[in-house]
């Protein structure tokens, strides 16, 4: 068996604040194989976004954060890397797509400038012309026809869908091994969201990129992911192949999530009784598709 692109083991996270220590992640484990699309599903505040930021190494720089457990990227322990090495991974070996494409692009710089900076991560000496050429090529891959106009524009001059494609193009520009997609396109129109997701799926398949897909939207997850982890209050409560989880949810939280599926655009947390003792139920693992 090949080395997983991402292997998280018993990850814990806590913050030290004025009111004392608050633990946010209570020891989660998950893995993403090369080229595999894995979804991490949970409501907001469940800990899915911080997990992504730990993988990117962003939280490690926060002085109030206390991180335990281990994160292995392509077999290398992130904690064992120094700051510079960890930094070197970002934007090259792994990249990220955000929820709201328009506000994730800097409003005062042209797309071209920002693209140039992205490409410079892989090739620090890349000239502006070369960068533009490369950017245009990648934009074409995400079905952007007039790449020149888009590159020359500021984010606020483009539609949300177009910005989302720009984001996807940027994310894949440096051929990363891992792409983290944090609620991609939630801020967009449903149809546009669906289109861009499809586009993204096509691209990651072509590029054989592993994806950690973070979402609260099961409908989208079902379309996109090979495997699903359900996270709830800092714990993984259920995991397994997408089909298995969807067809036979075992954990009450997963079932509650399922009940909310029709609300495709998401935004809502399942309306269930959180005090139910069921929520403390142990991790449910689906053993389908040959995984032990």
């Amino acid at each position, binding site marked *: 068996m090949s080395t997983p692109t991402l292997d998280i083991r018993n990850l814990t996270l806590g913050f030290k604040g004025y009111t004392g220590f608050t633990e946010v992640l209570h020891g989660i484990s998950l893995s993403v194989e090369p080229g595999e699309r894995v979804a991490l599903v949970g409501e907001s505040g469940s800990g899915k976004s911080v997990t992504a930021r730990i993988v*990117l190494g962003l939280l490690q720089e926060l002085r109030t954060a206390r991180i335990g457990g281990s994160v292995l990227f392509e077999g290398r322990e992130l904690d064992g890397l120094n700051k510079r090495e960890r930094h070197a991974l970002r934007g090259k070996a792994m990249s990220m797509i955000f929820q709201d494409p328009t*506000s994730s692009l800097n409003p005062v710089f042209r797309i071209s400038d920002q693209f140039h900076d992205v490409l410079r991560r892989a090739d620090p000496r890349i000239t502006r012309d070369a960068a533009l050429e490369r950017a245009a090529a990648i934009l074409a891959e995400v079905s952007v026809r007039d790449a020149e106009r888009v590159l020359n524009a500021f984010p606020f001059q483009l539609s949300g869908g177009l910005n989302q494609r720009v984001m996807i193009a940027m994310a894949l520009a440096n051929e990363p091994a891992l792409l983290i997609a944090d609620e991609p396109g939630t801020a967009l129109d449903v149809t546009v969201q669906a289109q861009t997701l499809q586009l993204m799926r096509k691209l990651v398949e072509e590029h054989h990129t592993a994806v950690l897909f973070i979402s609260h939207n099961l409908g989208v997850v079902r379309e996109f992911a090979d495997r699903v982890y359900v996270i709830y209050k800092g714990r993984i409560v259920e995991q397994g192949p997408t089909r298995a989880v969807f067809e036979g949810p075992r954990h009450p939280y997963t079932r509650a999530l399922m009940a909310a599926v029709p609300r495709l655009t998401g935004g809502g947390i399942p309306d269930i009784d959180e005090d139910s003792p069921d929520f403390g139920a142990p991790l449910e693992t689906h053993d389908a598709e040959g995984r032990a």
Partner: protein
Amino acid sequence: MIPLARLLAKRLATSLIVLIGVSMLIFAIARIIPGDPARIALGPNATAEQIADLRAALHLNDHIVVQYGHFVADVARGDLGVSLYTNRPVTADIALYLPATLELVLVAGLMMVGIGLPLGIWSARWRGRAADNMIRLVSLLGVSAPSFVWAVILMLLFAFYLPLFPIAGRISDSYAISSVTGFLLIDTLLQGDVRAFGNAAWHIVLPAFALALSGIGQAARLTRANMVETYDKPYIEMAQSYGFPARRIANHYAFRPSLIPSLTIIGLDFAAMLGNAFLVEAIFAWPGLSRYGVAVILRKDLNAIVGTVLIISATFLLVNIIVDLLIALLNPRIRYSQRPA
């Protein structure tokens, strides 16, 4: 560029209205001064007849509205009248003193931007760390004392006790620089006299720094506050997740968007230096408009008061317009209010 032109036209029109308002305000203030300007001007030994003549010549016997009419007509011809104090045209006096003040204010403005902004950037980048706390403390100290206190302290430290800088004036006596622009830093270079330029620059350091200190503090505080806010924006997280260098994130991705809201205030602060220059010029014997301004106010020199305040206000408005244009240039949302074709 059409939106820019429209913006400029709009701001100029508003400024003109405001300037007319200022002229009325200051004109009214100057006319209700107790005491007879004619008598003050002619000095202690003037006869009643001479005073009556001068009053007539100054239209002082007319209704204030008529006086204002005369004044506006004169201003339209570029005539601000004759100073009752120096017996010279007010425009000539102002032309003589304004460059020195502007030079001081401009250099102070450069210091404010050149030192204040980097401090603010640095502070925001290392927010919460020791460097940040130091900068915050120092910049707050900077804004907490009037510029004359800084002038006195700087002078005492760096001109008296450690005589590193000259104590007064714009340039040493031994340099004869003919005035072309009135800006010594430019005139010396125009004459190709590098040593004189160095000497003039050496003279301007302390007064400009004393004047700039509160502006530096203000600029640093503002930049920091706005940048800290910006650091929470998704596009900064995006830049970080792509591993852009921290320095580039601070200097470009976080700084540029934060600069736009800061600029208005920085512009106002810069313009306020025109007034604060009065305090610094007094200490460093800087031959600028301020000393003239204080002198004419103390002597109730009508024409000169109105002229000086008008010119300072016009400069103030001009600075604000420039700042607005700068903001428009920096903020693509204003520059490209329409989508490009």
